[in-house]
């Protein structure tokens, strides 16, 4: 173990923050559906990748600016989410069965992606890719900045919506005591459709950011599961700002582990955190 230079350390902390932003963004929708709908939606990861590939397709083949896909993909995914919830509402779904069912959906999405784009690595070429700012000897790549920015904007937007709008408060009320919420006129079925749609729209945004910053391959879907779950549980289920904050903490600790120890040690940080969270704060789950 050798001590890294200060500059290297700062740069890796910074990249941890950026990575944490992406963790938080993926975790936002996952945590909302877990906390408010009581569904552990593994297919969230599948949809993040689907969105990333669609963004890749539009940008590389169609020549669309990746940021423009923000106008197309989230609304489309909102509809998919609502439709999925509409279908699931016909069955009695516990958090546990939701985990199994959405795992099945994830496997289907993975196959779909592999059919469409093969298992090869895909890297989206866009005019954002190579741009970066350099401040005080530190690199600030533009795609990462966009990701972090979007993560912050969305987390705060969701936070404000849950806190200050009637619709958001109704969703929280519904997750606390659905029958009483209904007694005050809150239509649980309709709200669940909206909420599920919102979660997938957030997955779509996260996917676009993923395409901007990462090389894609379908088998990577499951690589994100553990670390994002850790962020969600650490940040609090149904919380808007929690997953982002926790994601950044995890991202930074991973990045530091990578420089101080070795890159292959990084997963141990997030998974150990997840285990501790599950053991000592499971009341929140």
């Amino acid at each position, binding site marked *: 173990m050798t001590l890294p230079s200060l500059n290297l350390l700062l740069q890796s902390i910074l990249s941890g923050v950026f990575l944490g932003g992406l963790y938080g963004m993926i975790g936002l929708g996952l945590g909302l559906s877990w906390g408010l709908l009581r569904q*552990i939606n593994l297919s969230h990861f599948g949809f993040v990748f689907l969105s990333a590939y669609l963004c890749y397709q539009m940008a590389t083949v169609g020549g669309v600016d990746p940021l423009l896909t923000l106008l197309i993909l989230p609304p489309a995914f909102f509809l998919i989410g609502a439709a999925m919830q509409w279908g699931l509402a016909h*069955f009695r779904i*516990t*958090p*546990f*069965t939701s*985990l*199994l*069912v959405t*795992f*099945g*959906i*994830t*496997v*289907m999405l*993975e*196959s*779909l992606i*592999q*059919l469409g784009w093969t298992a090869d690595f895909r890297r989206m070429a866009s005019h954002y890719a190579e741009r970066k700012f350099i401040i005080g000897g530190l690199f600030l790549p533009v795609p990462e900045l966009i990701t972090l920015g979007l993560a912050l904007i969305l987390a705060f937007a969701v936070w404000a919506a849950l806190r200050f709008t009637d619709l958001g408060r109704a969703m929280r009320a519904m997750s606390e005591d659905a029958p009483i919420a209904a007694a005050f006129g809150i239509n649980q079925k309709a709200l669940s459709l909206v909420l599920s749609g919102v979660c997938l729209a957030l997955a779509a945004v996260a996917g676009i950011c993923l395409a901007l910053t990462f090389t894609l391959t379908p088998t990577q879907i*499951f690589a994100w*599961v*553990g670390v994002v*779950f*850790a962020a969600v*549980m650490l940040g609090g289920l149904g919380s808007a700002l929690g997953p982002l904050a926790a994601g950044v903490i995890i991202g930074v600790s991973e990045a530091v582990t990578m420089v101080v120890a*070795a890159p*292959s*040690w990084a*997963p*141990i940080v997030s*998974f*150990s955190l*997840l*285990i501790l969270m*599950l*053991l000592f704060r*499971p*009341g929140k*789950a």
Partner: protein
Amino acid sequence: MRVVLAILAGGVALAALPWLGASAFAQSFLYLLFHWMVLALSWNILSGYTGYFSFGHGVFFGAGVYGTTYLAGRMDWPFLLTLPASMLIAALLGVTLGAIVFRVRSVRGEVFALLTLAVTFVVATIILNTRIDGGPGIYLIGVDIPRLGPSPAASLYLLGLFACVVTMLAAYGVYASKFGAGLFAIHDDEDVAEVMGVPTYRFKLVALGLSCALAGLAGGIHAVFVSYVTVSETFSITVPLSVVLMSVLGGRRHWIGPAVGAVAITCLLYAVTSGSYAVIGRGAVGLILVVVILLMPNGILGVVLARLSKRRRREATHEALPLPLAATPHQAGGILLSVSGLSKSFKGVQALSDVRLEVRQGEILGLIGPNGSGKSTFINVVSGHYRADAGEILFEGRNLIGREAHDVARAGIARTYQIPRPFAEMTVIENVAMAGMYGGGKSKGAALDDARRHLASAGLGDKAQWLPDELNLHQRKFLELARALAAGPRLLLLDEVLSGLTPTEIDGAIAMIRRIRDQGTTIVFVEHVMRAVVALTDRIVVLNHGKLIAEGLPADVMNDPVVRTAYLGKAHA
């Protein structure tokens, strides 16, 4: 016994295949079938039987893989010797994990699933970064495979077959035993199982240990089968997920279910992925999982068995009326239970405060009080479900404070629940037999015989093979009573057995409770239906806000002004 012989006979028959000229391909295909059957069946011993779904079966399998890899590949142990070592390593890992995890009450369901998955990745990272693997993977080409059959492939085939036979015997043995019945009770309602005398913590640990050891055996054999071991393959998420899928598809409730699922999925995967449609095949497996979970939550075998048992029930004839319960002489007088200074609070709310009371041998003691006065807490504390903050509970002179609920049950205390909590996936008679086996300490056979008598005296004799779901509330309340009695308790705690019953049903229940007492069981009777309290009880104690406010003969207590204020609000004119 027939099943055991069938498994052994099947094993012997299949063992002859290599000498009958089966092709190397057939042998390795069958090996893979055995491999997945071992993994799925062993997973099921903990996760299917108790309902603790583990997503971490890969880590125990992986412990076996790397146990053998390390010992045979690096330490030059003889291969066969590494197998028991691998089983031990996997079991130790599992039991250590379980010893921590099973202590936290809230780690159930999805939390347990995620936790075991996370452990998989942690262990994988450690192995990847230490001498055990170090990164590039390990070749096991140089390991000597002992010649058990005509060829090395046959040797592995035979080892796989052996592991499969052992696992089937274990899965069936547990399934058919009293231990297995305890595991199924944990699945249906862990709290009730504990209160009925099942040492839930120990049982879960044993089941996990056994499950892990078998997964470790599969891992050890598989390491040599693949002969090149990497962390990413060994600990990939496909192992636990395939195992879960196989078991859910086949049916978790039956011991052979996971094996059915394993065969189905392995053949399906082989059929679709060997051709040019591998990717679509994987997608199809995902689709099957979705459909099965939504439409057949109990799996293929679950659906088949439900059909069969319905038919069996229709064919069941009325059984001959059994002997009445042996009446023990009604012995009154001595103090059976003595409680003093008992206190319990929840988040600052004092549910019981300094309660002192005695229950005398052979009496029915009425325990009444307004909603939230602490009656249910009292029952929960005496039965060991909650731990008292302070005080003393002496039952037949022995202190019960600090003893686990299953210990209290074995000491001779049984309870019923206000809302009946039968084990939902056990038949009526199995429910009653559970109490006989654990609270009553009987063998499985004796408990079943005994259960039949208890059902008859509760008027449920013809419903023995029904599921609790198919009973109405009145019948469920009587099932609850029969189950409590089957434990042969000396003290019976009845929590609002009459609530929700019609007046006629209440009259029937009153008569039955009186019979129970006349047969020598002492009863604490918590109830709101006042005419029943007055009709049944010898003495009454009244709780209000967790404090004992009155005690005495029914007529005296109900005329006590303090009691009237507690019940009616203001002082009553």
